[in-house]
């Protein structure tokens, strides 16, 4: 034999691998509550029905490959609850199948599931609700968040505006609850970074703006006064697309339109991201969206924890994920980890326009005593979450 030593080691590895295969088997359930979307002015960009699920599928493929070398098995079961369906029963069934759940549901549902008795020893990954309260006083010890909070996104916009010295802001907000809560985050972030939010208006038009934007928006924005940057809170993507280039003053727009801060965008290509994008596009036949990224990151979080701990025990995995040792390579230029005070995945936030990456927050100069990433969103002293202590 050419490699007597290696032959011996190969045998040992094989034995170990077989031993491990019997125990390290990691089933995960992707639980999705389908939600009804409000009517919007334009259907140019329909939201794909498999948003989120496909990101989880890619994460599974990544984990499976790693698993083959370590004898770790992974499986993913997707449960989709229709509008008006019985989510709680589905959640209980899911929790009977696994205590690792990827949760794609509105914030109220996330809380209801987290508070189920059968969920107390589970780890739920929130991949769809950006609501700040879930990372604040409304947090749950069994819920981790791979999707960035609204505040992480609005802090990113303020860091950028501040670094460009666009200090005076105006805001147009829609009336949907998601718009209102995003607008609230924008105000809070503006205060945090010392910006002046000079004027605000609520979008009240009900006309079809595909025909009237050019006529209506200049007048609508005329009384906003002087400002450097126009913020748009239109999280349901209703009117925002008709604002840019139609404002009374020639000003850039940011927020839900124009310069967007999000977990992920198809224009991110640095830091090896081109590889993740092409693997996703090959799998899903479309571009990767923020929820896909959050679901991918959640599944990869589980995979990374299983790989490093050689365990499928939920308590062991949770402990490792929330420890200082955990780091996830997330194609955003630096390691991602979880905030130990509220379970939020710490991550850089890309600021993008439809054709290119503009900047990556945190921007240079925003320093922090522990991690610059904690200049985005609720830092330890700001968060009222206490159940993680």
């Amino acid at each position, binding site marked *: 034999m050419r*490699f007597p030593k290696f032959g011996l080691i190969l045998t040992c590895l094989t034995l170990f691998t077989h031993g491990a295969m019997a125990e390290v088997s990691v089933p995960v359930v992707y639980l999705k509550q389908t939600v009804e979307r409000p009517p919007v002015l334009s259907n140019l960009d329909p939201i794909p029905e498999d948003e989120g699920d496909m990101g989880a599928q890619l994460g599974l493929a990544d984990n499976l490959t790693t698993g083959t*070398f370590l004898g770790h098995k992974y499986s993913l079961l997707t449960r989709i609850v229709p509008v008006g369906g019985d989510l709680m029963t589905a959640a209980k069934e899911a929790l009977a199948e696994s205590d690792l759940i990827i949760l794609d549901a509105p914030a109220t549902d996330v809380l209801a599931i987290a508070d189920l008795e059968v969920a107390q020893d589970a780890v739920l990954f929130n991949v769809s609700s950006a609501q700040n309260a879930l990372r604040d006083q409304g947090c749950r010890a069994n819920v981790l968040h791979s999707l960035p909070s609204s505040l992480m996104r609005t802090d990113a916009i303020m860091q950028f505006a501040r670094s460009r010295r666009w200090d005076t802001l105006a805001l147009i907000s829609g009336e949907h609850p998601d718009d209102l809560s995003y607008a609230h985050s924008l105000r809070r972030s503006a205060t945090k970074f010392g910006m002046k939010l000079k004027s605000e208006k609520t979008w009240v038009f009900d006309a079809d703006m595909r025909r009237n934007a050019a006529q209506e928006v200049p007048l609508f924005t005329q009384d906003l006064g002087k400002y450097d940057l126009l913020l748009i809170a239109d999280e349901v993507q209703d009117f925002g697309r008709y604002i840019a280039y139609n404002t009374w003053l020639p000003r850039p727009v940011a927020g839900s339109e124009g310069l967007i801060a999000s977990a992920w965008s198809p224009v991110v290509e640095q830091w*090896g991201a081109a*590889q993740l994008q092409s*693997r996703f596009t090959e799998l899903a036949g479309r571009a990767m969206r923020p929820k896909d990224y959050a679901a991918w990151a959640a599944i990869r979080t589980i995979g990374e924890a299983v*790989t490093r701990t050689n365990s499928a025990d939920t308590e062991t995995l949770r402990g490792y994920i929330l420890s200082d040792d955990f780091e996830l390579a997330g194609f955003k230029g630096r390691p991602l980890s979880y905030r130990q005070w509220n379970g939020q995945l710490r991550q850089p936030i890309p600021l993008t326009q439809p054709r290119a990456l503009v900047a990556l927050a945190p921007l240079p100069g925003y320093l922090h005593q522990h991690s610059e990433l904690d200049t985005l969103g609720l830092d330890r002293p700001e968060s009222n979450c206490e159940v993680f202590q």
Partner: protein
Amino acid sequence: MISPSSHLARLLSLPLFLGLASPALAAEIWVTNEKDDTVSVIDIDTLEVIRTIETGERPRGITFSKDFSRVYICASDSDTVQVMDPETGKILHDLPSGEDPEQFVLHPNDRHLYIANEDDAVTTVVDTETRTVAAQINVGIEPEGMAVSPDGKIAITTSETTNMAHWIDTETRKLFANTLVDARPRHAEFTAQGSELWVSSEIGGTITVFNTADQTEKGKITFEVKGVHPDRVQPVGFEFTEDEKTAFVALGPSNHIAVVNAETLAVEDYILVGRRVWHMAFSPDKSLLFTTNGVSGDVTVIDVAKRDAIKSIKVGRFPWGAAMRP
């Protein structure tokens, strides 16, 4: 090729003129420009770019054959490895490389290329003589770093998303071990006469040193650049001095090269270079080191003895790989 200054030189001194007009006499550093689809050729004597040669799309890995009569270039987005005549800059032929070849290593037999196919989770072994694929080996997601032991018995592929070094028996072309490293391994090299394998982890911020004999971990190198957050200190490419006592390690977006004592694994020095430093190549006598700086689009020349950057040379957009031609 003959510049006005060389006309002047011809008037002044015939021997000097001959020296300038015959680029084959001076050693060169070949740098692949990932976003320009070119190679920049740097003359080591004048420290200037003397030629720019077109390549396939997104050139990254680059290496010469043993006798330097051919240069192999990974044209990633053209899904091929190009074989070029370095004298003329003409593409002689393409090799079947598998999809998206990023980085490769030439086996000491001067015949087999071990290629990391980044999009395919595969290592492809190509016979450069018959121009056929000799084997494909399934490895982890996003294979990148490639190394081969000096005796040619072991090839290594590192996978960026699976976070492993995969050990390939070059005889059977099968994996015989898979060892975990920190997040996003990028580059691998054998050293200490092949008794050690070093693997850099970009996101983990470390280099893991393995004992080749039993694949156990011998040690780990960590880095600390003053004024730079640890998250941004990201080791990528590295090379050893002739005596294998010192390693130079590119630290990516921290814009520094670390000088590591290969025996104690302690970092002795940090050298400021261009932005997002990636790979590097030595001059023939290893007195100069040339680093590719992706974001600033230049190459930093380091005086190895003084451990000091002495010059920046503008090349194409996003310089990636570097190889020396004597």
